[in-house]
């Protein structure tokens, strides 16, 4: 991987990490009055995938969408405005954290009903095919979504029509508090199950952004060339609670030891170390970037907090499209 790209991946991950940590810090102020599902620990999947895409490619996401949105190029101010319920938010305050959208960068939407954007993403890919556009559609999903019927319905159709879609499964082992081993047989890997549908299905290290980038790049090029869908499973780990800003290792559904093992594999720190080892960056470069990021995020938070709430008249607006 060339130096420029590797550095770019690192900065993108660091930016998302810093934004998410800032949200966690500010959330207790009670001003962000919507559920938040933080991606701390999972940044490599979002960044590795989106860096392998073109701006006009489409992406759909889930309840845990901040990282996907930012990685795809979504507007940070519009995201924070949305979390704060302000009219400057990407949905004018009508969506909240779980409904991010930015059509200008191909981020077509996120919803919190597990699995529901999978067929919608497949439909977008179908639409682009009917319209003879050469776009790739990425569908982000979690391990829990592979238990939903609609996932299987959508994959079947994507294979049937050889659609230009890449399914990206972020396997973080938990559906809220239910671990994978109570939901799926431990003798089976998700990507192996999916392979039965007749598409290429691969597994990669979800905490290694360069690996994620490489697999996605190949899958996206294949899709763009008209050679059909791919399923990519990336194992990774959610550091904080399912919903909210806190750590929750004390509640008993996972062990402190497991958490620490995954934390030791932090995707951001890992790439930083590699960059330093390879001599691709110097420590002072990184310090400079970190300061710039902090400024950007402080400014975005200030923008969101200073933005007005939507006028009450907006309650009745947007029921129907004109």
């Amino acid at each position: 991987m060339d130096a420029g790209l590797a550095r770019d991946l690192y900065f993108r991950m660091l930016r998302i990490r810093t934004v998410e940590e800032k949200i966690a810090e500010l959330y207790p102020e009670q001003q962000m009055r919507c559920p938040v599902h933080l991606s701390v620990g999972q940044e490599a999947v979002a960044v590795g995938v989106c860096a392998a895409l073109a701006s006009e490619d489409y992406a759909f996401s889930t309840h845990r969408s901040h990282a996907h949105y930012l990685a795809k190029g979504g507007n940070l101010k519009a995201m924070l405005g949305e979390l704060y319920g302000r009219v400057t938010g990407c949905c004018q305050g009508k969506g909240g954290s779980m409904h991010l959208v930015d059509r200008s960068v191909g981020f077509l939407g996120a919803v919190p009903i597990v699995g529901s954007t999978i067929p919608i993403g497949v439909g977008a890919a179908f639409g682009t095919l009917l319209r003879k556009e050469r776009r790739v559609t990425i569908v982000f999903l979690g391990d829990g979504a592979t238990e939903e019927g609609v996932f299987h319905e959508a994959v079947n159709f994507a294979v049937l029509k050889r659609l230009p879609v890449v399914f990206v499964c972020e396997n973080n082992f938990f559906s809220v508090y239910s671990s994978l081993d109570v939901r799926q047989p431990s003798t089976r890997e998700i990507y192996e199950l999916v392979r039965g549908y007749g598409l290429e299905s691969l597994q990669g290290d979800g905490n290694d952004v360069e690996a994620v980038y490489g697999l996605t790049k190949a899958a996206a090029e294949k899709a763009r060339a008209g050679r059909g869908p791919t399923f990519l499973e990336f194992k990774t780990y959610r550091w904080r609670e399912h919903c909210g800003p806190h750590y929750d290792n004390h509640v008993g559904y996972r062990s402190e030891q497991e958490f620490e093992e995954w934390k030791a594999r932090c995707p951001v720190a890992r790439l930083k170390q590699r960059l330093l080892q390879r001599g691709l960056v110097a420590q002072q470069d990184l310090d400079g970037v970190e300061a710039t990021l902090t400024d950007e995020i402080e400014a975005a938070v200030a923008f969101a907090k200073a933005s007005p709430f939507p006028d009450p008249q907006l309650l009745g607006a947007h029921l129907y499209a004109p």
Partner: protein
Amino acid sequence: MTRDLRFFQAIHEATDLCMARDPSVYLMGLHVPADPKGIFGTVSGLQQKYGSDRVMDMPTSENGMTGVAIGSALVGMRPIMVHQRIEFALLAVEQIINQAANWHYMFGGKDAMPLVIRMMIGRGWGQGPQHSQSLQAMFAHVPGLKVVMPVTPYDAKGLLIAAIEDNNPVIYLEHRWLHNIFGPVPEGHYTVPIGKARTARPGRDVTIVATSYMVLESLRAADLLARDGIEAEVVDVRSLRPLDTAHILGSVQKTGRVLAVDGAWRSLGFAAEVLALVAERTYGTLKAAPQRVTFPDLPSPSTPALAQHFYPRTVHIVNGVRTMLGLQEVTEAQLGIQHETPLDVPDKAFTGPF
């Protein structure tokens, strides 16, 4: 030029016309191209004309395929999805209600959702509790959806064209007993606006607000009532959401009486909505307590022996009106109604299996 067409032909003509006008319109549904009867004739020959990309069969995956329709609509297509029975659409309620209905609103008006879902309401011939449910109230309850129920072939065509051209999800409900009725239909493009009711018959004594097939029963009732000098106004609502409340209230303010007739369950349904609307907005000017004629709150039975006691008919509407006027109830024999066709089929030509 206007000529008489059957309801199913009007649907076919609307679809054909919209597909010819707009290459982004496409049609999908289980058996849509494969059904030798062309989904009651409504899609016959369209695949031959427009190809298998635009008229396509689909996997037996109602929810997933509704998501596909939604996703394609987001990127510029205008899908029409067909369910031969409304019950099949229930497998897709997650996508219809959570996603299609909310999408435009929850993303702050960023996207349009031009999607039509045709659903057919069955009745009779032993179709029973999972092939003859009338779930208009369930869909019409949801903000963000539009729900239409055409009765005449004219409206079947005009409302379907309007639905296809609408930038929102429209549930288009077809009653199986309407597919073969005749009526005048203009050639070419025209629309019937979604959200506008129609006075199917003017009258001064009572307003009958009816949906779908029950409009025809209500018109028969109005004819019989007229023999006794009672002039019933029949309002065909056509759209349940948005509902033309002004039209309904205008009629009720004129007549002072309202009977809601809905081919669906009684409790918490469309007829209940009409009565609530009238009670809220015209209380004090009513000459009689509002009434409703509906199905009983029971699953629909399969056997014709019980089905004939389940579905309300002309006589029940006549008696609903007579009760409001303080008149004695009458029997079908007294009204001179003779059933030349069995009560579990729409017309004499019908020999099943649907």
